[in-house]
């Protein structure tokens, strides 16, 4: 009988899941909607970009689809303040 293998997440993704969120740079955004279209759980990422707010939606998987697909480099991962303070 084989031993059950521990579930392994890619390191980078694991770190993002633990300590970050998606942050927009509004000056780059033209509201094309590719980010919202790419979100697997239908978060309106574009609205966050218009308002210049991080995607703090607690459902956000930080899967990176919106970051990767934005044609204008509007979105990036950033460490959240909460963890930067050493919480």
């Amino acid at each position: 009988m084989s031993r059950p293998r521990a579930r392994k997440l890619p390191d980078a993704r694991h770190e993002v899941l633990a300590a970050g969120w998606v942050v927009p740079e509004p000056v780059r955004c033209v509201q094309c909607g590719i980010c919202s279209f790419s979100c697997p759980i239908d978060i309106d990422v574009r609205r966050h970009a218009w308002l210049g707010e991080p995607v703090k939606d607690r459902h956000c998987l930080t899967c990176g689809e919106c970051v990767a697909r934005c044609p204008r480099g509007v979105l990036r991962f950033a460490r959240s303040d909460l963890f930067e303070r050493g919480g």
Partner: protein
Amino acid sequence: MGQRYLIVGMGAASIAAAEAIRGRDPGGEILLVSEEEDGYYSRPGLAYFLSGEVPERMLFPFAEGDFDRLRLRRLHARVDSLQLRSHEVALEDGRRLPYDRLLLATGSLAVHVGLPGVDLDGVVKLDDVGDARRILKRCRRGRTAVVVGGGITALELVEGLRARKVHTHYFLRGDRYWGNVLDETESKIVEHRLQEEGVQIHYHTEMAEVLGKRGRVAGVLTQDGRRIDCDLVGIAIGVRPRMEPAEGAGLATERGILVDEHLQTSAPDVFAAGDVAQVFDPFSGKSVLDTLWGVAVAQGRVAGRNMTGQSEAYHKSVPFNVTRLAGLTTTIIGTVGRGRDEDVRGIARGDSETWRQLPNSFAAQDVSDVNRLRLLVGEQKLLGALVMGDQTLSRPLYELVAHQADITPIREHLLHPSARLGDLVAGFWAEWRERHEAA
């Protein structure tokens, strides 16, 4: 009775203004009048709609609920004239709309080409979502298109058509693409990548006539007498601000509607913002046009606040655009080029006249494969930058240009022929940011 705010146009500047007005005046009436049937959508997003990256429904950032939330009334109608003395806008259907404050955010439209055959079915432009739909209806594998023009829109047409497997010919009047913003190396990188994608570029080529058969496009004739059979002709030779009602009412205009630093026109209570506004630029000391989404939003917000009685000066920020040229993300910051582009009349979409002010500077450049970094180095500061491909440095460079950071410590190093620009900029920015944030 609350203030009556009337906004003509339904683009980025209009929506940004409406939001700003509502933020300061909860009780005012806001009415947006536009002849565009489709309302508010992302005009720059049309490129990605054409290429198939985003469906049409996603181009619309506002749902009905968003208009309701802001209590914005919308009217689909065409403006006939402005009655400045009585503070009214007359519509073509005879109705008159009174206003206390008026915003003209009418945008710009493609320049018409006066050549035989341009009215044939199959000659297209890319002004609005209706144009994009018309193009997609005609895009079938195996068809052939000819695109003429320059700047970003011409390339959006070329790339959209190629993404739809249409054989595409691209005519350039001169010997390279977007010659007044890109330098020769950058133009060649873009052209080479287009050719790799199967686009046939015809240099020193001008269209003389669109040929038709039973009212539809059948081909084009070039000025040197060549005939190319095709099903579609895309034209993007620039855009022109839509100034008709403003000109008719006697507002001060040049290439656009002239506005003061509060974005007010020469008439009391009338403001202008976005593509149609010609705005004083302290960077160059001239009044300039921009056809950039981000600029339109920023101007709309300031105009909106000023319409509610605030007195806020619009500070033109460093012009900035991110675009994709032949698949390469490209950021253009500040002043990068000079002269004029033979393929464009006036201004293209996604463009800023500031980019082409002749800077008193030296160019430093670093090219590796397709990634390219070009800096316009002034006496003490960076005047502009172009980042093609890898975008790691585009945000640092925007901050350095926008804040006019004193680059004296690295200036000589930047101008050294074998300088590693990326490393120099990254290192300098890290130090500068620390100092800047501490200050």
